[in-house]
């Protein structure tokens, strides 16, 4: 199992750098993973997306569809890419501690 070391803390991650155990996630972990995405500081706008993804995942066991993220956060897709340069699935979901999406998506 690969591990990822960020500022002295070590996390088990999958091959794409997603947190292996979603239960280990908290806001501190989010801040650390954001750094691996090149985001130095999480603003209120970042948190809005992160918390939305996190809550959806806890309720439904999957990431929400991207259109729904845009609609419910009020951010256009372009804005989400500005916030999370590697995009909603690879960037935002990783910071929110969601597993990598599976299936034909």
């Amino acid at each position, binding site marked *: 199992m*690969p591990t990822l070391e960020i500022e002295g803390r070590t996390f088990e991650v999958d*091959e*794409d750098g997603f947190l292996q155990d979603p239960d280990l996630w908290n806001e501190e972990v989010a801040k650390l993973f954001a750094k691996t995405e090149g985001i130095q500081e999480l603003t209120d706008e970042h948190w809005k997306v992160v918390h939305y993804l996190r809550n959806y995942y806890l*309720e*439904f*066991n*999957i*990431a929400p*569809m991207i*259109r*729904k993220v*845009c*609609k419910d956060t*009020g951010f*256009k*897709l*372009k804005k989400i890419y500005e916030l999370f340069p590697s995009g909603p699935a690879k960037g935002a979901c990783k910071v929110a501690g969601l597993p990598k*999406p*599976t*299936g*034909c*998506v």
Partner: protein
Amino acid sequence: MRAEEISKPAEQLVEIKVEDLPKLPPPYENFEEQPITPLSDDQKSRWEHSLDGVSALNLPRPQNPEEEKALIESFLRGLGKLLTKENNWTFLQPLSLSLEYCAKCQTCADACPAFEMSGRKDIYRPTYRSDVLRKIAKKYLSKNGKILAAFRGHDIDLNWETIARLAELAYRCTLCRRCAQVCPVGVDNGLINHELRKIFSMEMGISALEVHDKGSVKQLQFGSSTGMTKAALHDIIEYLEDDIEEKIGRRISIPINKKGADILLIHNAGEFMAWPENPMAFAILFDAAGINYTIATDLAGYDGVNYGLWYDDVQFARVAIQHLQVAKELGVKKIVIGECGHAHKALSVIADRLLPGAQLIPRESSYTLLWDIVKSGKIKFDPSKNDFPVTLHDPCNIVRLMGVVKPQRDVLKAITAPGRFREMTPHGVTNYCCGGGSGFAIMSSGNFPDWKRLVSGRKKLSQILGAFQGEMDPSVRKMVCAPCSNCKGMIRDMMQSYEVFETTGIWYTGLVELMVNAMVDIEKPFITWPDEEEDM
């Protein structure tokens, strides 16, 4: 390269070099291709990569000679089982015939997109892995599949290198079966590759993570390989209804678990997540045509995928039985399969082969039903609403395998402006695979995505570019109709890697989206292009 060389010690048997690859059509004729990313030292130390430097399976090496011996024996047991009726009644006959009758004429090699687009690397010839298997079987097994006490002739060695390379090689073929189509004696090397995957999964527990652990296992546990639960689907359907209302100005109810409906419509659940316009378009069309149908939200009834099709007969049967059971419980007259090629093959052709007749209920492709809708005249279409160049991708499973060729073309001709539809070359039953068949579209570990980008997806990208030659101005929008979730995923990834929309104005969608886009009763365009984001 001779079959025997697969067992030779070497860091890597072949290397894919970008300079060996066939050139893409304009405007990509001088495109600077990124080579395959070498695995990191850490990955190399953990994963087998001695075939072509690529790891699709992340296969660990045996730790000691005992472990190696056990793996070899297990492989031979698996191969033996493939060759006996009691263990492989499902596919024994086509397998034996294909192993026995190949004349090695190599007609199939020229038909194989992976072989051609790799720069004609011998190991990717459709006959290569078959020849290795044939030689192993002759050397190590008796006629009835028993392991021989004394091995005979043939200088092929069944060592760990051979097994590891065969495992990876089983995942360098998309199972498009173009090879079988051109074989003068009907040998099916695609089937042999499928059977090889069965040895690895069913006997040795070796399979692709995305296809097994995170695929069919997840589907049996949650109902969908996406992990989507019933509650999630209900939330999504409500969202789709809201979205439809915003798009077309009136609310449509998507029927759920409606007992006694005529039709159970099963989508690939990936559509709900990645291409929600597709199930939305189905809902709009079925509502407008007055079709009495339902969506199921019980276990596996809402995800038509069946990844077992690609690698494991038991996983296949487990999922297929659930699909049929959901339909029986709802009391529908038939199942209609949405725009998913593998679901078509799994639920129709292979279910017919593997499951007892009593469990089966009629199943139909959505393509034929969509043409029936157009013919019925219940929906008015204005072809001038689709006034842009359109080409059509033929999903292998629906077109080459099942022979459904004309309905989707008749639909397109009825809903696109005159002269706008053009075929790819070749097309119909002699089409080329999107490059994502047999699980590849969703397999993304290690440097396998690079292999797909350079090799398996290259032929289809060439064909798509070829269909629009002379119209490459990116300000002229052009559309590939790809009525299959898996193909859409692969085409999307290729378009992203090569920045196809930005460079040429070519985009992709499904069939139903184009149909709704042409509906007279719907004012706003249904299709959105990547450079126009809707206000949400």
